[in-house]
């Protein structure tokens, strides 16, 4: 798992980690039952505070994205989207609102804003297929 962090950006480091792990899972680069490196390993590799990494892992676990088994290893959860539909929508709504507000301020047409989301969804799907192909070739 390769994480790219920008410690001096306005985004907290734990959030950067959470977002990237979620992205890897969405793109199929991490799949259920894949093991994640330990908190200690990630902290040492990236030269960041172990408490920050632990916080990111805890949040991802709370969200059902990761699970930690007795003995301490952390895995991608079997059903990482096990949340209620209403909860998923509640979490996504602020992002949608921000897209809507910023897009309108930039004078983009509604159609153009929605197209952007489609493009991102397609990119994710393509990434997912590439990983699928690689997995099949590996077997």
């Amino acid at each position, binding site marked *: 798992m390769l994480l790219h962090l920008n410690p001096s950006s306005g985004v907290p480091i734990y959030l950067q980690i959470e977002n990237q792990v979620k992205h890897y899972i969405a793109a199929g680069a991490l799949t259920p039952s894949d093991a994640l490196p330990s908190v200690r390993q990630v902290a040492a590799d990236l*030269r960041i505070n172990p408490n920050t990494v632990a916080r990111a892992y805890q949040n991802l676990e709370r969200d059902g994205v990761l699970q930690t088994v007795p003995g301490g290893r952390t895995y991608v959860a079997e059903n990482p989207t096990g949340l209620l539909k209403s909860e998923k929508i509640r979490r996504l709504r602020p992002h949608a609102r921000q897209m809507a507000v910023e897009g309108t301020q930039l004078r983009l047409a509604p159609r153009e804003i929605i197209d952007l989301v489609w493009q991102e969804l397609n990119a994710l799907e393509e990434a997912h297929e590439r990983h699928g192909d690689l997995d099949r070739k590996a077997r």
Partner: protein
Amino acid sequence: MKDMAIWTEKLVKQYGKLKAVDELDLHVLRGGIYGFLGRNGAGKTSTIKVLLGLTRPAAGEAMVLGFHTGRQQVAILERTAYVSETKTLYGALTAQELVRFTRSFYPNWSDDAVPKYARSFEIPMDRPFAKLSLGNRTKVCLLLALAQNADLLILDEPTSGLDPVAVDEFQRVIVEDVASEGRTVLISSHQLADMERIADWVGLIDHGRLLLEARLDDIKSQFRLITAAGAALPQGTTADIISVSANGDFCKYVVRQNAEAFAAELRALGAMITDISPLGLREIFLELVRKEEPCTSGNAGGIPAAVSSSF
């Protein structure tokens, strides 16, 4: 208080009329890396010297690892490793000899750590300390501190003179060998970008007073810089508004939390909000410290010797 590695209450250190430390309340959690930040002469080194019992406070109280400074000094020193701002050790001794001299003072000293860090920091162990470059002196000081296996490391400018590779190695060691083991580190440093990486808490001191003590994540996710334009905008600070600076009809606010709610209040007063942006450590530092009077005490003005010789 049991979860505090360092705790001070209304700590005062005075040199003549100058209050180098002014009613300081410091809270350093166990198992964290605390970035102790401030300008030259802000009172960082004076605070550290009080914590280590190297100088006596005029008032207030300080506890280190659950022991009272002053009264239980030996217990504190046995468990605390210290790298001083000046990096001075006996100049005629080599690093190897300094190791032999230092090890007997510390009950948890690790002989294995010496060759390990000598190798990873590439320290010339057989040259007299006085003949070493500043960077190599700093490395020797770090080696002696790390080998103590201390519960608390107090590091005053621990990367001075280090090249980027050595700084990277220093960060790896602090994260992997110290913080991951649940031990506590207090680092005083001007390298804000480095601090932003490895610290989880920061304390910002100016004129001996603590301007800010917060979790770095909270600074990033809740602190906002709000720029507003309008007549008769509020100028006072509150629990949430930690600094205000006005320039004509423009006001800049550093807000600790609830930035959107405060922006709504300003809009209700007829203000136009021109920007709400997150703050990095550097911006926080400049916003909070810049508007204060320039420091005149201690080692301000780039004469590092002045502060230590006046003690």
